[in-house]
């Protein structure tokens, strides 16, 4: 039965349908034409928008080179006008084109709709005899299709996870400054010098030319004490600083740990116990309480931090605290406990491991590859135990490692470990470390004299290369410090002496009258002296004594100060202190 034909004549309907169809075609073509025009305009115009046209830019550069060239000016004006007109023409076309397109589409749809309607033949569908079976099949297929779609979704998600690199480049502790990705390249020298990467600063002389900490502080009056953070385990090592983090180690008979504090707020960013070190002795070494197991100061190359303990455990950790490698060097035989700090040079970790009471016994100097912990070279040393820390200096065209032990000051080539020169100038228990002062290596022979040597010799230079020596107020524990021009040193009883670095003449002395165990340091033109009882003085690094300021903290201090930026970091027995201007 054909119901539709009841309403309209067949032939008439066909004719109308055809008319509408033609209309639809025309409208459709019209729409296409408009689309094409708009697309063409976009394609030609977008690259030459007045603000990004390379041609215009080139002309303007040319004009800057030849400011008087009227021809270039004319060209710029023409081109500028042309592009601007084209740009605004395009905008206008887009607007009107939109409306025209809308109209065209309306006509197109209406015509198609009419064509379809007048052509409509309504007929009752024939009953589908297969319908029942098909329904079941469709259901089964739908289930399959849904399952297939689920698989597609899982695949897409997996691809998304894989492409999106599910590691988040965010630090775990947002308060801590993020750690630069461990790259094989070491940080530049400037960064090394801007930080405080080892015992007594970049070159081991306790001198920072650019740091600018405050002149005065007082814990009681809460002035210039930025923060104070308790240190979990004791240790006599000094803080080192790298990239907004302060590193320390601490330990007792049971545990040895490394701590990292955020320089910004003093929060303990992480602490890592050094344990399960291969070959580590089960028994804690016998050490004096005044030395402890964590006397050696740590070192860093900006990629990892290194820590050495009195039981011979040597560990490398990432800046985020992740263990890199660790090994045991054998417990050094030392009647007080091992105290020599680590040195670092171009990614190599330098360990001076002197031991034995009076007889030399297995003392050695070792260089490790910082990244892997492999021994690069190792040199035996015929010296007994010492407590001075090595420094690495550039002198006589070589990188030299200067070590001090009874009875010699010995220099080694940092690259190969070959011995360069030695000077038998030391006596007593060698604790003060050597420094470089105005091109001379300066070393205090405990309580006897301060000697400066020219570091350009070879072989035994005891008789040939001593530049000067001075015997006044010589310290027994602390090391001297120098800004290259002057040398300062302080005795345990609190006598500060200033010498001219050139010839060793004494310029002045000043008695603080209190016990001082921490080596002094120089920041800019100021000498910082920290006494054991928490008093501190800031003295001008000048040829005359002039006190610039003073500080007071409620703690006991043995560690050397660290200067970074506008701050001073001090390790007390109980806590780490950050001095700076708020």
């Amino acid at each position, binding site marked *: 039965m054909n119901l539709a034909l009841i309403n309209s004549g067949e032939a008439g309907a066909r004719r109308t349908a055809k008319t509408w169809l033609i209309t639809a075609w025309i409208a459709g073509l019209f729409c296409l034409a408009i689309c094409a025009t708009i697309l063409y305009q976009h394609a030609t115009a977008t690259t030459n928008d007045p603000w990004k046209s390379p041609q215009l830019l080139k002309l303007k550069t040319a004009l800057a080179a030849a400011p008087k060239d009227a021809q270039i000016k004319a060209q710029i004006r023409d081109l500028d006008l042309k592009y601007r007109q084209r740009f605004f023409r395009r905008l206008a076309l887009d607007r009107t084109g939109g409306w025209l397109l809308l109209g065209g589409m309306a006509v197109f749809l209406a015509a198609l709709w009419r064509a379809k309607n007048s052509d409509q033949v309504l007929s009752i569908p024939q009953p589908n005899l297969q319908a029942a079976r098909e329904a079941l099949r469709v*259901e089964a297929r739908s289930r399959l299709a849904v399952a297939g779609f689920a698989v597609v979704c899982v695949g897409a998600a997996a691809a998304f996870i894989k492409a999106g690199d599910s590691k988040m480049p965010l630090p775990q502790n947002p308060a801590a400054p993020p750690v630069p990705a461990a790259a094989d390249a070491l940080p530049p020298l400037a960064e090394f010098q801007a930080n405080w990467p080892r015992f007594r600063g970049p070159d081991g002389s306790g001198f920072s030319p650019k740091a600018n900490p405050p002149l005065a502080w007082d814990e009681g009056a809460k002035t210039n004490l930025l923060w104070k953070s308790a240190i979990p385990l004791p240790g006599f090592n000094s803080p080192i600083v790298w990239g907004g983090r302060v590193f320390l180690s601490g330990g007792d008979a049971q545990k040895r740990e490394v701590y990292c504090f955020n320089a910004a707020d003093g929060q303990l960013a992480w602490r890592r116990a050094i344990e399960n070190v291969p070959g580590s002795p089960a028994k804690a070494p016998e050490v004096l309480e005044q030395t402890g197991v964590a006397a050696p100061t740590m070192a860093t190359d900006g990629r990892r931090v290194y820590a050495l303990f009195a039981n011979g455990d040597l560990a490398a950790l990432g800046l985020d605290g992740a263990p890199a490698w660790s090994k045991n060097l054998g417990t050094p035989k030392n009647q007080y406990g091992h105290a020599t700090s680590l040195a670092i040079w171009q990614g190599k970790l330098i360990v001076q491991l002197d031991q034995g009471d009076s007889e030399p016994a297995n003392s050695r100097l070792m260089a490790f590859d910082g990244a892997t912990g492999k021994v690069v070279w190792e040199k035996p040393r015929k010296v007994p135990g010492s407590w001075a820390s090595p420094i690495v200096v550039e002198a006589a065209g070589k990188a030299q490692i200067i070590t001090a032990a009874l009875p010699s000051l010995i220099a080694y080539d940092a690259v190969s470990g070959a011995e360069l020169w030695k000077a038998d100038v030391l006596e007593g228990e060698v604790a003060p470390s050597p420094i470089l002062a105005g091109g001379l290596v300066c070393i205090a022979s405990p309580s006897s004299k301060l000697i400066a040597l020219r570091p350009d010799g070879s072989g035994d230079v005891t008789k040939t290369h001593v530049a000067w020596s001075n015997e006044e107020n010589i310290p027994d524990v602390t090391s001297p410090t120098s800004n290259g021009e002057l040398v300062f040193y302080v005795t345990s009883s609190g006598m500060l002496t200033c010498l001219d670095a050139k010839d060793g003449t004494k310029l002045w002395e000043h008695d603080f009258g209190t016990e001082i165990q921490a080596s002094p340091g120089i920041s800019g033109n100021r000498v910082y002296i920290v006494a054991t009882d928490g008093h501190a003085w800031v003295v001008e690094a000048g040829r005359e004594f002039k006190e610039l300021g003073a500080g007071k903290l409620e703690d006991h201090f043995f560690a050397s100060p660290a200067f970074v930026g506008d701050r001073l970091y001090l390790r007390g027995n109980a806590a780490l202190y950050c001095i700076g201007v708020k």
Partner: protein
Amino acid sequence: MFRRLLHLLFGLLLLSATALAEQRFPPPDFESGYQLPTPTTPAPRAGLMQYADVVVLLSALALALWLVYRTRSRRGITALSLFSLAYFGFYRKGCVCAIGSVQNVALALCDSHYALPVTVLIFFLAPLTVALFAGRAFCAAVCPQGAIQDLVLIKPLKVPAWLETPLGLIPYLFLGAGVCFAATGSGFLICRYDPLVPFFRFNGSELMIGLGVAFLLAGLFVGRPYCRFLCPYGALLRLATLAAKWRVRVTPDTCTQCALCQHSCPFGAMREPTGMQKREPLKTSRLRLATFLLLLPVLVGLGAWGGSQLATPASKFNRTVKLAGRYVRSLTTPDRFPMELQRVEANPGPVLAKAEEIRQQFLLGATLFGGWVGLVFGVKFISLCLRRNRTDFEPDPGTCFACARCFETCPSERIRRGWIPAELETARSKE
């Protein structure tokens, strides 16, 4: 109310106080009597006009209900569609719409900084409430996106039922993703990837215009592709119609089972009477149902696990997280566009902390999203095993857009309207 009044008073006080305190560095003292112009500030559409939109929305919804249930007029529905397209589409430029409002509601629920405009809440709730009682009248003729697709539908082709089922799941997934992104403050995905809005504005990115053209071209042959296979609000409405009290009924009288309505529906929404379907052995279907019921929690669990894996890569779409990541990378490798990093570099702490917080939110959000995806699939499997008894042809309320096309093809309706003589019908029934 009282609080608001207080705020107003306080604001006024503050304003006058600053006016007194303010003293600007004086501009040059012009000798020629030049007067300083003031910059123009063309006003936005007045706030009250938003409520006009609400009134239009509610009236259009009521009118659509009336047209579907009382007059049963396809012509009326088409006319209302044209009006909605003109008003909500070309006049209001497609913003704000019910589809996008889902995200505003999600954001308002999760972010205490965001104030949800009342009008947006009404745009979200009104069509949903209507759907709870009377089906998708909103889709029929009020939604401009639906209207434009309905109007371009010229030659409907049938999408095979097995294909329609999985494609019909996409809206649920899109809804989940859209809510997850909005709730974490990472942006409005649904608005960003609405392919039809660029038409209303005569403007848009190349990608979105291209997508829109593709959808409209497909819409010439496939009924409402966006509504059926993408629209997340449609997914919500589909859920709401499960509870609908009134449903669209094709025939005003008894169904003659002529199947004309099934053929007339371009959206595959018409369900045939179950009497025509073959039954499987009861045992098979029960076993299958039991399997899928057991599978449901497994799917939800798996989905949740998978979702949690998505959290980190997905969180990188958040601006703050992206910025924090760029900042961290810039510490080792220089950034190509450092201008954006300036505000982190000045003070990285809060940004990094915020990024971490958002990442945690994403962990929760993505896990929930994954569970939701598992649930959608599991429920779909179960529903494919269930069979309801139908004696007549009737539209599936979830997929029916109440477009009124089927009414006019029903012989009984045509008789009711007097388009064909009743005698013919009685003659046929005697046959």
